[in-house]
């Protein structure tokens, strides 16, 4: 929906350029600009308090000494982080989570890119059925397929290997990723590709040098969704990985939470460790997710 505009501005239609554009009226004050400021800042501020207090809370617990009830993390201590990272095995969990996240990202993006291209550019006999299957798969709860999935992975001797989680995450990411990517590809005018063929490019090369650069926002969105989802997802890892050395961060967090007496400082520090990569990804894709999507930015 957004890239439609992006593609349109990126590729000025040749015929339209022939006629001189009508002079733009001088920018007027639009109704959108006339909302009283307090109607923006008051509700936004209120909501921000709700959003930020939980973040502050976990930061506070992770930095203040155990037993302290101070509302500012002073004096700062890093004992919780040291404890979680070494004693509670989060160093290993972190490594595993990164591996799962990156592998899921790469697999999802590649498979979805191929499938999305077919859906966007070709009419083939099975297409409607395939699209329907993609949609239906959205209603299939991964959580309810745990048992048969477990049996499949047991049959493949993949229980306790990160591969099982990577496969499962990829499969459940695929339908939506493929639909998203095919929409992004549809928004790239087919004539661009055709023009490249005329200039002597093969289909693959035309795709690589013409379409792929225009897909960047879409690929970043899909890839980061895949990473964030697999980083966050809990149930598959809980079910398919029994070995302490194979588990991922969400499972580690759950272990901390389900202890008889919860070590709040360690839990908070573990939570921060879980949040950091996601926050980095979020800050990175923000530009594409939000600002890059805004009509203003596209209109330039």
């Amino acid at each position: 929906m957004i890239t439609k505009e992006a593609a349109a501005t990126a590729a000025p239609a040749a015929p339209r350029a022939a006629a001189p554009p009508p002079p733009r009226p001088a920018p007027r004050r639009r109704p959108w600009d006339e909302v009283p400021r307090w109607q923006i800042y008051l509700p936004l501020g209120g909501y921000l308090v709700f959003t930020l207090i939980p973040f502050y809370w976990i930061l506070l617990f992770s930095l203040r000494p155990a037993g302290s009830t101070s509302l500012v993390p002073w004096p700062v201590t890093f004992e919780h982080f040291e404890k979680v990272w070494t004693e509670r095995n989060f160093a290993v969990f972190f490594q595993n989570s990164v591996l799962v996240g990156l592998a899921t990202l790469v697999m999802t993006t590649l498979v979805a890119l191929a499938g999305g291209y077919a859906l966007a550019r070709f009419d083939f006999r099975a297409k409607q059925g395939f699209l329907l299957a993609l949609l239906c798969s959205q209603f299939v709860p991964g959580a309810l397929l745990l048992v048969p999935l477990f049996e499949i992975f047991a049959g493949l001797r993949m229980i306790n290997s990160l591969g099982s989680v990577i496969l499962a995450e990829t499969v459940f990411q695929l339908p939506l990723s493929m639909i998203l990517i095919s929409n992004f590809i549809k928004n790239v005018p087919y004539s661009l590709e055709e023009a490249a063929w005329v200039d002597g490019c093969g289909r693959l090369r035309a795709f690589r040098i013409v379409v792929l650069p225009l897909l960047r926002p879409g690929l970043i969105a899909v890839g980061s969704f895949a990473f964030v989802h697999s980083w966050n997802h809990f149930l598959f890892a809980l079910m398919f990985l029994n070995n302490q050395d194979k588990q991922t961060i969400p499972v580690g967090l759950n272990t901390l939470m389900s202890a008889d007496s919860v070590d709040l400082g360690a839990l908070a520090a573990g939570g921060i460790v879980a949040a950091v990569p996601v926050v980095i990804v979020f800050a990175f894709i923000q530009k594409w997710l939000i600002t890059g999507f805004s009509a203003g930015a596209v209109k330039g």
Partner: protein
Amino acid sequence: MAQAAAVAKPPAPPRRRRASHAPRGLPYLLIGPALLLMLGFIAYPVLSVFYYSLQDYNPTKPWRNGYAGLGNFVRVFTEDPQFWDTLVFSAQWVFVEVGLQLLFGLALALIVNQTFVGRGIGRALVFSPWAVSGVLTSAIWVLLYNSQTGVSRYLADLGLGEYGTSWLSDPATVFPAAIVADLWRGVPFFAILLLADLQSVPKDLYEAAEVDGASRLQQFRHITLPHLKDAIILSTLLRAVWEFNNVDLLYTLTGGGPAGETTTLPLYIANTSVDAHDFGYASALTTVAFVILLFCSIAYLRLSKFGGEKK
């Protein structure tokens, strides 16, 4: 982008070239990997759930395994009060969550769609919980809700409530407490989706409405809402399915407790299959849940006339 614009300059060739560049097998080759993965890891498990639903299948009691006919389904509907309890709770949970998330998400999207100083950072902060996992959300809210050093303690310091209040272990407060925790990370989902759609509303429409003297409320009703309709229908449906199926948050935050108070149907199914090893019965429950979900989704799309007003 500049590169693409440069390529775009030569006039587009006639359309029929398309055929010569599309070998017949290519689309199937391209969807092949996705198709194989989905057949193996979605279609096959779904079929095996249907199969098991007709079986008595419990790995810990192999002597009783065998064909059960519709026995499991009869048990679901006539002998299992927990099925009805968890189904009702699931419906409550989904309805309240999706309704509130849509309400707050739409309001937030409308606000951050305005032009104002600090919009970039405002958006980033408001949207940030979107990326936080269910388990991490639980961890955060366990810290907020705990009875010793959680928020309730500081409220008690101010004279509000009593010391030692634990909202998660009191049946009277556990539902709102869990709802608020899930809202915290769910609202940004709607805000992001609806914001993206808000920005595709042609600005001229508002300018024309302004010329015609339409108030801001009228503009919202007659321009913004109709434009967002399909996005709202689709996002609420997807979210409802997701909220129904997702067990991360409740599993880790309340564990379905206290006293089964917050057990959704999927959580009950997971417990039945994972803890009780009653795979046959869990499969029957799964089948029922799946049918209910599909039926509700179709009904919702029909009733809301999805896509009806498009040209």
